[in-house]
């Protein structure tokens, strides 16, 4: 029996039973994985990005594999916030696993309407504000500008008593500034990071593989070093919990995020190739903590030396 306390307190009463969550967009709303693995053991399910109205999603092709990674341009296909609040949430309420609904919209008042609609439903542990979707018009506007991100979070903070996690975009010059702005505006935690804008070219056709502007969000092991650096920068910028995400596919990957400064993690793209990988990472983290005599996984955290003047 491990002595380690693996619980993670994200704030406002949202205490995850363990640090291993599954990332938005890689787990739907849990219903498919429920048929494949024991989802109740997970630390949290971060749902598919949920928008004010249902969305059909982008035309295909929507995914393209790259070296150690995957580009996607799904376009936030989802049934809309009303359906999630009135139908899906009833299942969430029966589940042991905390469900954190990822919310995406194009305007401040739409985010506010979404969380108010979801507030009426039980079974939702927290919200993850998606201010960083690269695949819809205006999807990244909030995530790119600290002031705009702060205004959005302030408005949503005033609208809901529930825990607010803000998912940061890596496609910025200084991610720490955005993280600080959302902390100051009342975010309880941040998750870092969303996908990186990328492109795959079809040489034979002399055009990108993905439609529209030809770009998509890059995820998978290819982005792990970039995500680790982002987590370290965010950790240095804020005091609130940091949920690390980006290319985690093994226990070692997950441990590296705790060293870089994460309080919890999300497993994303790896779920597609290996539906039970998140549970194996959970078991591995538990065993590691016990073997290393850790009280908490955050004991692994690296303390950077001050930069030379």
């Amino acid at each position, binding site marked *: 029996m491990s002595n380690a306390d693996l619980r993670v307190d994200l704030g406002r009463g949202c205490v995850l039973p363990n640090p291993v969550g599954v990332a938005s*967009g*890689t*787990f*739907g709303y849990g219903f*498919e*994985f429920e*048929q*494949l693995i024991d989802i109740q053991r997970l630390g949290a399910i971060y749902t*598919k990005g949920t928008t004010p109205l249902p969305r*059909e*999603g*982008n*035309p*295909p*092709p*929507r*995914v*393209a*594999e790259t*070296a*150690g*990674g*995957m580009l*996607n341009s*799904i376009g936030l*296909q989802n049934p809309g916030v009303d359906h999630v609040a009135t139908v899906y949430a009833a299942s969430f309420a029966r589940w042991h696993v905390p469900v954190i609904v990822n919310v995406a919209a194009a305007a401040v008042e739409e985010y506010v309407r979404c969380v108010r609609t979801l507030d009426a439903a039980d079974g939702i542990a927290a919200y993850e504000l998606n201010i960083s979707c690269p695949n819809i018009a205006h999807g990244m506007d909030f995530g790119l500008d600290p002031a705009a991100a702060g205004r959005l979070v302030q408005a949503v903070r005033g609208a809901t008593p529930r825990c607010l996690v803000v998912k940061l975009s890596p496609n910025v010059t200084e991610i720490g500034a955005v993280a600080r702005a959302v902390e100051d505006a009342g975010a309880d935690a941040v998750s870092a990071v969303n996908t990186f804008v990328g492109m795959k070219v*079809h040489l034979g*056709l002399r*055009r990108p*593989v993905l*439609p529209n502007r030809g770009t998509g969000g890059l995820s*998978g*092991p*290819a982005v792990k070093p970039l995500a680790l650096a982002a987590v370290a920068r965010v950790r240095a910028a804020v005091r609130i919990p940091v949920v690390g995400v980006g290319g985690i*596919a093994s226990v070692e990957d997950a441990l590296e995020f705790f060293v870089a400064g994460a309080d919890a993690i999300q497993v994303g*793209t790896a*779920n*597609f*190739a*290996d*539906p*039970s990988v998140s549970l194996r990472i959970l078991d591995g983290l538990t065993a590691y903590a016990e073997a290393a005599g850790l009280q908490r996984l955050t004991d692994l955290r690296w303390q950077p030396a001050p930069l030379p003047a």
Partner: protein
Amino acid sequence: MLSSLSRARDETGEVLRVEQLPGGLVELTAHLPHLAATARAGEFAQLRCGPGPIPLLRRPFSVAWVDGESCSFVFERVGAGTRLLAAMRTGDMLGSLGPLGIGFTLQPSMRRVVCVAGGLGCAPFPLLAKQARTMGVGDVVILHGAATAARLYPSERFVRGVDGVRVVESTDDGTRGHHGLVVDLIAAALSDGADAVHACGPNPMLAATAATLRDLVAPRIVEASLEAPMGCGFGTCLGCALPVRRDGGTAWALCCREGPVMPMDTVDWDALRALPPAHVA
């Protein structure tokens, strides 16, 4: 309709043999008892092509044949994943998640099932023929076309000793069988009546099959097995969207769970044709 995931299981089994067939086709057989016991014709498995992370994702393959506890898959070397699979040796371990998706409709009351197999679209039909005959379907006619004789899937591999299975071949260049397209064979095959037409092959061939059947007295059950670039294979990544007709317009359906086999009249063939060729790599 969404496929059930309740039969899907992640299992790892030994590769029993990898056969290099004429024309660059490869047939890989592995010990996968769960898939062998549960797969229905037209359903697929997500195969792990290597230890990763390159390639990162699994690749979807129709279950081509089941013998005892082993399953066979037929493919071509088209990319990194299939090249790794083709290079596997006896004794290597293969990961399989399946069975997944919706397969072909088969009913014991069917007197005749006509299959239209273009090129690699041969893959689901050996198992279909066996399962159809086992459940009591009268006979199975497989129309199989390829660019040239060397690229035809060997007819004895469709049959594999199952009686009541007949193969009619065509080649674009006339090197074997009918000189022309496989869809040219459909009218004759239906002339004595059939209860279902099941097709698998490149999108243009499937679209031509659908168009041909519109001009004939087609059976009630007419289905096509489609493909799309897939991330997960079980409905969460939402990557494998295909255009279908719904409520008078075009909507997206997931190939992995609303397919890969769909009634032909639900597919929006014009929209499918308009997609960039890279859509099916």
